[in-house]
């Protein structure tokens, strides 16, 4: 039986058919044309990014940093402290050693120059993904720092005249050989569908995807994307880290700490404790697994995605994300039960379980 939490929209039948077809493609079966090619090297899995010719590690390194490592300064008002930068550099080094080959680098956090320095010697085996102002001058600066840019995108909330102008600039940069693949990041499903039709030469899409926020128009959007061999990259695979906070087990520093959840828990004692208890029971049935690992496995298991791009700011998180790559295609019943239970907890907690700046996830992407 299909677990409820995997129901991404109400059109269950077409979605099931779609997933089966996508799985067949991944296995190289009938209809393999346009499938995401996959292979394993060591502990890391690699998948092709659409028609770009690039193979990307299934786990990729997002740029977001731990707030406690930030200090005032830089174009976005906060930059990493020297200690934070050092910690982050070590994390990137470790991720690269584990086989991660895509780094998403945010200049708004002042990260272009430090990352360019860090990867200079191993640039040939690292893919650099940027999301920044799209202007000839900024692209030329990125090219100067990184040699070339592998992926460049911009965020957009709608496809309008402004988007078209920005897209035109990206296409020109790609034509000049400055960028290898161009795409957009969006938080809106309708924009994803429109982008596929309107943005000429789009190579990939960044969109939110995790076991709670897995709503996407399977019957319209995904088949078109797969048919046209557009690379699909999942962002927010851990809902900006909030999913980890749903894990009630006492891993040091990982207990549920979100204040509003606790307030809600106090107010709704009759309901929430039961849901949390169910989640705890589910997780206790798999002692070697964290909720984070189960959540990442859910995303890794989707054959249409090329990579899960997640913010990594502590070593334990990197280890969990990496460990989830083992046996990611086998979803045990207790894992599914844990994810269902966590989804229920999040639903019962209301939008307050997410930080305010990420509540759009709940509004637009709830499965």
């Amino acid at each position, binding site marked *: 039986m299909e677990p409820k939490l995997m129901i991404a929209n109400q059109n269950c039948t077409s979605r099931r058919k779609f997933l089966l077809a996508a799985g067949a493609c991944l296995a190289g079966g009938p209809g393999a044309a346009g499938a995401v090619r996959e292979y394993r090297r060591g502990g890391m899995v690699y998948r092709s990014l659409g028609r770009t010719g690039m193979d990307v590690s299934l786990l990729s390194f997002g740029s977001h940093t731990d707030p406690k490592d930030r200090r005032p300064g830089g174009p976005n008002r906060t930059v990493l402290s020297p200690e934070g930068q050092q910690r982050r550099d070590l994390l990137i080094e470790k991720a690269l050693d584990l086989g991660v080959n895509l780094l998403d680098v945010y200049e708004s956090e002042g990260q272009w120059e430090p990352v360019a320095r860090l990867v200079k010697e191993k640039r040939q085996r690292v893919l650099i993904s940027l999301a920044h102002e799209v202007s*000839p001058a900024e692209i030329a600066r990125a090219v100067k720092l990184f040699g070339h840019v592998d992926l460049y995108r911009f965020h957009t909330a709608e496809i309008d005249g402004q988007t*078209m*102008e920005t897209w*035109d600039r990206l296409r020109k940069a790609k*034509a*000049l*050989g400055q960028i290898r693949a161009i795409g957009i990041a969006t938080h809106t499903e309708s924009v994803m569908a429109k982008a596929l039709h309107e943005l000429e030469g789009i190579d990939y899409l960044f969109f939110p995807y995790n076991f709670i926020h897995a709503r996407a128009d399977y019957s319209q959007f995904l088949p078109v994307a797969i048919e046209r061999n557009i690379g699909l990259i999942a962002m927010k695979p851990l809902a900006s880290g909030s999913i980890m906070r749903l894990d009630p087990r006492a891993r040091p520093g990982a207990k549920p700490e979100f204040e509003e959840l606790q307030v809600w828990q106090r107010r709704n004692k009759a309901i929430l404790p039961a849901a949390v208890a169910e989640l705890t029971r589910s997780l206790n049935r798999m002692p070697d697994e964290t909720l984070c690992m189960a959540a990442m496995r859910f995303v890794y298991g989707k054959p249409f995605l090329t990579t899960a791009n997640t913010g990594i700011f502590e070593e334990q998180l990197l280890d969990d994300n990496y460990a989830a790559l083992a046996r990611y295609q086998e979803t045990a019943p207790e894992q599914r039960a844990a994810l269902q239970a966590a989804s229920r907890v999040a639903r019962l907690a209301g939008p307050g379980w997410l930080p305010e700046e990420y509540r759009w996830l709940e509004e637009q992407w709830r499965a």
Partner: protein
Amino acid sequence: MAGVSRALLAAAAAACSLAWGQTQQDENFKQAGVCARCHVISVVEWSISKHPQAGADCVACHGKSEGHVIDERNNIKPEHIPHGEAIAGMCASCHGDGCPKTRNKASCQKCHHYHALVNPEQPAVAKDDHYEELAARWARYRERMAEGERKVQARDWSGARAAFQAALKEKPGDPAAAERERMCGRRLKATWPGFEIAGSEYDERTGLPRKVKVAGLGIPMVLAPGGEFEMGSDRLAMAKPAHTVRVEPFYLGERELTQAEWTAIMGGNPSTHQGAGFPEAVQMPVDSVSWADCQEMIARLNARVAGGGFRLPTEAEWEFAAKQGKTAAPPLTPEAKGPAVTGRTPANQFGLFDLLGNVWEWTSSLAKPYPYDPRDGREDPAGKGLRVLRGGSFSDAAEWLDPSARHSDRPERRLKWNGVRLARSVPD
């Protein structure tokens, strides 16, 4: 003794014959001209055939091929190099009755090499009456052509035209005579439908006025006299490979179409860069126009101006025009400032302004891979796909200000850096 004398006489005759052959071969090499510098074997083959005596030289079969002659890298090929059965077609232009010996009309290359080397061990014995007649006709042709050129020098256009027409009678379909005859006809023309002639300069080769204005609208256009050029560039990934393309003479807007000119045709101005902050907007190029908008504008213009025939340039025509001499581009400006007033940077060799920079210019061509071939459907106005834009704009990286650089977009897309330049085929 008598035997010895005979042997000596035979040796002397052979030596004379050899000397005569050598002298004749030298003459033939001279006749082959610059071609003999590289194509030695071909010229030797040709020179021991009857072709030199008949006046059938390199140009007669391969065309003038000026581009090939000056291109040391041999990227530009001669105008005509027939292969396979096409060789027999070329031979038939003189040997209409077939082979003088066998009367065979096909597969000449079975017995003859490319340059008609007849096997010296088995010299042809059949007398070629047709050849004698042909040689006489070609001699008359050369006389008429020379007469025509003398009359051209004397500006006697009627006389020159008659001489070239007479040359065409001796050698029907000869492209050189036809071109000169057409040139004289154009020089005799007093008016051109849809054009007002501006100035008194005419192109020597085509006989067309160099500068004209669109009747009733005053939009200046300049003659691009056509010819062969190297299209594309091996330096730019989007413009590979460089290859030879020939374009016919055409007229191209001296400047990008201005906002004032667009308004005069369409009755409205879609440009982003107008209003407050743009005091000279009317002289700035129109922007924010789609390819479809341009087609609408052209339809209205053709309905309004006698003769019609206005259109967008093909991308080959655009590049041909942009590669004539060094083209200065207006400086790149901050995006908010928009494009510059047209015609303020130096013009290129044809007298065209702002081909590079300012605004992108739509062309009629669909974006298809090179080599450029107008017969492959890329010039179909109803064809589906992206249309090519050329020239770069005020907001682009400097790499785009290159005559070979190609960009493209959907025909319905309106962007604030996309404009247009008019073109028109020669309205003969």
